[in-house]
């Protein structure tokens, strides 16, 4: 088992630098955990997101007061001075995401049924802002109906009518235990990020290992040894597997610490299985990269392109819903895509029967297929190089 021992020795020498990545992952996850818990309740749930809203009103009438009161129900009102710099700063630092300016003469125009526009300055692409848009338009459209139809309506009466109408809300029934579902989405984040960190560590660790083994002089010396190539390769692959499993174990344990904070579910078992399969796939990608790369200086750059690139187009950082169809099609030629797809599906599952799990198993099989393909390519390339 000389080769196996040598591999472990080389990896052990690099262990400190690899630990840095684990710490990095831990840091990122902790920050995500602290932000995800607040983020989730804001953007994606029925407790309508509370956008931070600043209202700059150039007039003060019962109607503007009514509108403000209504908006206060769905947004945090933030008081800001009406100065350009203060407003710019507020948007820049996201102390508010929506600034609404009510121009002078607004109420009068509304009461006369004349066209008038409120001015908004917003941070783009925010779901919580979309709710505000809807609510403001709803309020003023209803107001328009009243003004058109009822004569001699005072502002106070109008505000009272509107207040009553807008209190109406759709009844929602959530079929599954929603609190549980929310928790699973939470652990889904960690398992998705895991793909980034795991791949980084494996690429850096295995390339360090392969660079030593692919050193031509060393290779020639090793070839003299009374060990068959098959034997050497077997030991080498065994060492790679041990390293992969250990790395996966450490990362998965970290994930578990975060995921189990909210209690255990069957989903977590499946998420673990999926991440293990991805680890195998990541190991074979790393093996391929290690075989290809010649200069140690290029490794950080390559690992960066591969890990970040795959993560971005496969929906690790940017949710898949927001990616374009073409991009997803392209991404489906990468294992990360299938890993994330399986994760996302697993997170929302509540019944674990075959029909529900079948797409997950397909994704896992595809990942295994990728693993085999990358490994095979690496072996062929390695052989070619030795023969040269």
């Amino acid at each position, binding site marked *: 088992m000389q080769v196996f021992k040598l591999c472990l020795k080389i990896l052990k020498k690099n262990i400190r630098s690899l630990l840095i990545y684990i710490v990095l992952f831990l840091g990122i996850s902790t920050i995500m955990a602290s932000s995800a818990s607040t*983020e989730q309740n804001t953007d994606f749930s029925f407790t309508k997101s509370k956008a931070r809203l600043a209202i700059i009103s150039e007039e003060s009438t019962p109607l503007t007061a009514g509108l403000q009161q209504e908006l206060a129900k769905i947004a945090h009102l933030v008081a800001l001075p009406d100065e350009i710099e203060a407003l*710019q700063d507020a948007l*820049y630092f996201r102390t508010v995401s929506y600034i609404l300016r009510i121009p002078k003469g607004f109420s009068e125009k509304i009461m006369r049924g004349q066209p008038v526009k409120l001015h908004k300055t917003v941070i783009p692409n925010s779901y919580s802002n979309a709710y505000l848009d809807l609510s403001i338009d709803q309020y003023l459209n209803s107001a328009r109906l009243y003004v058109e139809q*009822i004569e001699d309506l005072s502002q106070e009466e109008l505000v009272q009518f509107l207040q009553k*109408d807008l209190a109406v809300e759709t009844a929602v029934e959530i079929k599954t235990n929603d609190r549980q*579902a929310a928790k699973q989405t939470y652990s889904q984040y960690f398992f998705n990020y895991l793909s980034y960190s795991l791949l980084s560590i494996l690429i850096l660790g295995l390339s360090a290992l392969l660079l030593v083994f692919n050193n031509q002089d060393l290779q020639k010396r090793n070839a003299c040894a009374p060990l068959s190539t098959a034997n050497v390769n077997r030991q080498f692959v065994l060492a790679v597997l041990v390293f992969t499993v250990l790395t996966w174990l450490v990362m998965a344990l970290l994930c578990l610490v975060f995921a189990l904070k909210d209690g255990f579910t069957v989903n977590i078992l499946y998420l673990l299985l999926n991440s293990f399969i991805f680890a195998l796939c990541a190991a074979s990608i790393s093996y391929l990269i290690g075989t290809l790369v010649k200069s140690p200086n290029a490794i950080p750059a390559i690992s960066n*392109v591969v890990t970040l690139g795959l*993560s971005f187009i496969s929906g690790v950082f940017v949710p898949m819903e927001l990616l374009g169809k073409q991009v997803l099609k392209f991404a489906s030629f990468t294992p990360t895509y299938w890993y994330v797809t399986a994760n996302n599906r697993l997170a929302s599952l509540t019944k674990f029967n075959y029909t529900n799990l079948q797409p997950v198993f397909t994704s896992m099989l595809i990942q295994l297929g990728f693993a085999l393909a990358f490994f095979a390519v690496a072996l062929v390339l390695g052989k070619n190089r030795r023969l040269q």
Partner: protein
Amino acid sequence: MSLHIFGNRLKCLLRDKENVFWTMLFPILLAVFFNLALSNVNAGESFQAIKLAVVNNSSFHNDQALQTALDAAAAGEQKLFELTLTSQEQAEQLLTEQKVSAYLLVDEEPVLVVSKTGIRESIIKSFLDSYLQTTAAVNTILQNNPNNPALLFQSAGERQNYLAEVTGSAADPNNILIFFYSLIAMSCFYGGFWGMREVTDIQADISALAARINISPQHKLKAFLSSLTASYLIHFSELILLLLFLRYVLQIDFGAKSGYVVLTTALGSLAGIAYGAFISALVKKSENMKVAILIGTTMFGSFLAGMMIQDIKYLVSQKFPLLAYVNPINLLTDAFYSLYYYDTFSRYFLNITILGGMTIAFCLGTYVIVRRRKYASL
């Protein structure tokens, strides 16, 4: 002599083709990936119609107004919903199989049944809320002697837009740019590898090459500065290529102050190289350890500057403002963004001043560690 070292160093560095290739290509490749992933986020065009099942019972049949409203929302090019009329059992099944986002059951009041909470579900709910609220308004009006009831229904169906968007500054706030700015900032700090290499090649106890160079009668600081300039030239050229690629191939708008963007990149490149040199001089461990620290800190800094998830940048600046000011990658990202966003330069200069101070600190630190080294044996 300095020029001689500079020239030869340049040749020497450029001959490591794999290294030059990857350091140049990696930000460009990443930019392509970013662009792929994010182009859709800004355009927001590929909105897919939401699949909604409606239980086709007698109450729904009698509710003519709701039918009209739903039909209107499910028609046309930019339709909001894709409707399926079905029985309750079937709707239930469609929901569990995740074939529809929700189903609507009209009893006395419409009830929306969902399996989870999400963006699509929220949109359906908002639509229904709006419908119910308008209905409530119509009913109230009908009880209060309307002028023209015939026109009321038509008028209720039309929605007027009461909002006009105005920009708060010279440029719209643009979320996507943060990703690209932090990518440039990260590339600047990957210059750290060049700086690291310069220290490795001048410290006699690290490499044989350095031991040889140290024997030469050339002043060490001068030799170091000359070869460092060669590294800087290569790295800065790579960054200029990246900027050109971003501007002209990916069509990313840097705002009106392009000259300042180049200037900032030049400073960023210097800061990155100085940082790498400092880490290399400070960490006495193996090469791998140095590389790991450099990548680790750079990635973490980029993460905090919003490269992976942009909300992190705001989270940090709101909750840990100090961390935002000591993270050089965030300072650089922020400098780029403030150039784009603000009309004034005050915020830009604040960032650049702090970054400049850090660069000087890195340089001085490196100098103090590297100077006057003597070795009893090597």
